[in-house]
């Protein structure tokens, strides 16, 4: 999913530009990538059997199937090296952990947004993430500075 480009998504759509979702297919592809739409928001997908396979692929990539529920941060565990730069640049994590602000890992009792567990980025306190606050400013610090390109915001 992290490697999907807008054209990859577009190719899986009906590409009829029917506008039943309120936009053309290319715009819908972009909306899927930015998390502003779900695959089920495309009526032809739900109505026509021939799109079942494409719908399934997109649901696997973007659908909310109960296994995901917070922040919009997508982690590619195969790429993460656990260097901890994401935690070190997360303003909220730094506020929540004095140890982290001093260049160390957060203590067990602290609740930063991000913590490195078993060599991988892990979300400990998703509700504190800036992106969870209503009308929050866009914050991409962890994604922008990840040298392994292991992080994406949907």
């Amino acid at each position, binding site marked *: 999913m992290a490697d999907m480009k807008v054209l990859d998504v577009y190719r899986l759509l009906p590409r009829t530009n029917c506008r039943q979702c309120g936009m053309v297919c290319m715009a819908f592809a972009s909306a899927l990538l930015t998390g502003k739409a779900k695959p089920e928001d495309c009526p032809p997908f739900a109505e026509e059997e021939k799109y079942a396979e494409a719908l399934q692929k997109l649901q696997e990539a973007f659908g909310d199937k109960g296994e995901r529920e917070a922040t919009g941060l997508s982690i590619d565990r195969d790429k993460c090296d656990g260097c901890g730069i994401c935690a070190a640049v997360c303003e909220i994590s730094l506020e929540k952990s004095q140890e982290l602000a001093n260049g160390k890992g957060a203590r067990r009792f602290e609740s930063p947004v991000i913590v490195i567990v*078993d060599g991988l980025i892990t979300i400990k306190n998703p509700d504190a993430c800036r992106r969870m606050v209503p009308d929050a400013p866009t914050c991409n610090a962890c994604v922008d500075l990840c040298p392994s390109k292991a992080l994406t915001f949907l």
Partner: protein
Amino acid sequence: MPEESIIKEEDRFHEAKGEPFDSAVCPGCGCLCEDIDLTLENNRVVQAFHACSWGLSKFHLGHRFLREPKHAKLVFPARKEPTGGPLPVSYEEGYEQAAAFLLQANRVVFFGLCQMTFDAQLLAISLIKHFNATVYPSEGMLLTPFFKALKQHPAGIATQEEIRQLATTIVFWGANPLHSCPRLSPRYAVFAAGINAPERHIARKAFYTDPYENDTGFFALRIPITPENEVDRAKELTEIIEEGSFSVPKELDALVKAIESSPFVALFVGRGIAYSATPDALMEALFALRNAINQKKPCVLLPVISDFNAMGFYLALIQSGIDPAESPQVCADLLAYQPKKGDTLICIGSDPFWFFSDAQREAIQSLYIPVVSISSLQNQTTHAADLVLPVALTGVEAEGLAYRMDGVPIFLRQVIPTAQPTDFTVLKAIQERILTEPSHG
């Protein structure tokens, strides 16, 4: 909860049940991170906080360069059968055999020695002196030129904590911190807050030298170099800093401005200098650059070390009266080793066979050169060795002193028990057999 907000369940934090073991020291690299919190169950690490993938591998008794930790612990001492397979022996038999191999040698050659405790290093050096042996430290490509240049340009070095507090210009010369010491930049060099850099990476300027763009480019600006012009580039920079210049080359402009405006400069030098046409001259030029900056503001030069106690080994050499800058016994380039009949190789905590050329491997085999490997983990050298003596993994199965890359001593604690002896115990047992050998003068 905003609808667009999603996170996979597997990426959420789940605390493992077990016994906490907090503030362990990581033997993954020269950073010696002392903030690793572990959870243990049945004498096994079941969860590790803050360790990078390298450190995690060590706590799982595996090789650090594998993303998925894979158990690679050696189980029993063994000697090679005539058919090539391993034949289990007792430690006592192993010590006797190792002593015999060393006593029969015309020349003893040591490899590695950078991933063991300081006490064991001192003991190994006493054996090096006893046999007038040659040594190829696993970090020799970096640290032998470093100590040669340090002798010419003596100066104090700062600790990592001082660098975090004070440095606002960071230069990685021939070093990719993300691959040699993954937590160096978030903990000390770039991303942690300091007195002079309360806004962390925003207040710092970071640079790296490399012929090509690499992942350090996510937070540092590249200074393009080639193996041929690297020394000239360092000298050019030194001249500009010393004399000032109205015509600074475009590629150096940002670096020169950053150095001029920074209250404290940190230069990190890495194994990449080995790719230079003249590593010794390059190290000399980098020390001259440090001196030139030091005339105007504090500047330190530190090696970025992958093997956790490489600095300890060089300090142990100096403490034992062997000058790594002058002694012909201390070699830098492992590929320069020329096998001779009558050699005995003793490899401690390292895998030289991974680095040897095909010609070197063939010569070792055809000349029947005995190879003794003292190691915690399986590797190409233990596979090729005539005698393998497994030891406890320092920092996980055994305690001991090590020196961080900035020379700060840090004591590594034992995390889980083992029945295997430490590297110190094994070397001591071999030494005792050598010293009590009646035929040995």
